[in-house]
């Protein structure tokens, strides 16, 4: 069995980052793919 290698652009996922001003915010973006790296 081999790993699938497709990603879907619709897979927007939340993440949390510290911005340059030090504030912490939640953003949406592409998931780390479905195996693509």
């Amino acid at each position: 069995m081999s790993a699938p290698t497709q990603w879907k652009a619709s897979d927007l996922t939340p993440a949390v980052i510290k911005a340059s001003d030090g504030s912490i915010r939640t953003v949406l973006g592409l998931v780390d793919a479905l195996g693509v790296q």
Partner: protein
Amino acid sequence: MPGIPENITIAGRTPATIKGNLPPLIDTAPAARGGLRAGDDSGGDNPVGVIFSDDFNSQPDWKGQVEINGTYVQNPTLPTGWDAFRSVGARYAPSKGDMDKHETIEIVSGVGSGDGKCLVKWRDSSTLAQPGVWKSDGILSKFIPGGLSEVYCKYGLELQPGWTSDATSNAKAFRFSSLKDGFDEWAFGTSAERGHGPMLFHDINYSSTWGLYNLAAMRGFPNNTNYYFGTSGVPSGLPRSMNQGSMPLNWVDNVTDLNNDGTDDNPPYISKVDGLPMSGKTEVAEAYGFGEINIFEHYVKMNSAPGVADGVYKQWINGFLTFSNSNIAWAGPDATVENMPKWNRVMLGGNDYFPVHDESLKHEEWSAYHFIEIRDSLPENLV
């Protein structure tokens, strides 16, 4: 390898030294076993060359929760000293209603050997078809403002005893990246995120056919033309062929013959099971053991100019050199002197391909990061 036996208790830390600028030699048991000097988590008291370290013991308990049952968590927190995280794709977790399970990443004590805290990555298994296969995406990211031309990272990683070892599964464990200013600063790196590149991924993968292998995945710059080394070309002197930048490195001749010229040029990796040089199909316990802290070290150096094949990637696992190549054009010929990238992201974790256990079992497995140290160059013992 640093060799303080597990049955020796390290009860305290040595006193601070000159004006507090030099850290004590020994901080925590994991740090000592990892050969680290102590340092605080801000980088302010770290030894020369160390730009960041964390043994997670000073962190408050933390769960990587962003949403609970579809509702965003208000005021999510970041672990102290860290800059970004993603924690999505848990199948079984408190945020999914399974209160006895775990979020994809968390910082807690009580998981892994020893008494200290760890960054714990949980992978959830399900045999259900897509989208249930690549899940458990937990990443903790450290930013390096301004970037570096070379960067080294060392961390201690322990796999849960009984880590599934007889079925195909992939676990992303680590990555370096360069992210261009002006792009999605939260991004963690895929071919679809045009600001990323170059990157270096390391995965702990298991094939039911081939056994355990090191997946070293190298990605180039610019992202839109050279992500899979389309313009740089395949580096010379690799231990095996590269497929779109990725190499499923074995533990046998890919270690002993680093440049695949037919002559052994490197000591073999020694099995943790029988103490003999690795041979044949490798099992997880042979490489990593269970209940042991494995020391991973990764070092990358950017090539000197666009298209020049003098970039570096070196990898050590438990003190054994397991990959070394100095012919990498991380930035391809279609880069420019003005936009040469620098390494500015170091990340632990990733997502998992783990379609092994039936959904009804709600099977989780942990891997525990005991410490991390990031340097702006190789430590002296590896130069």
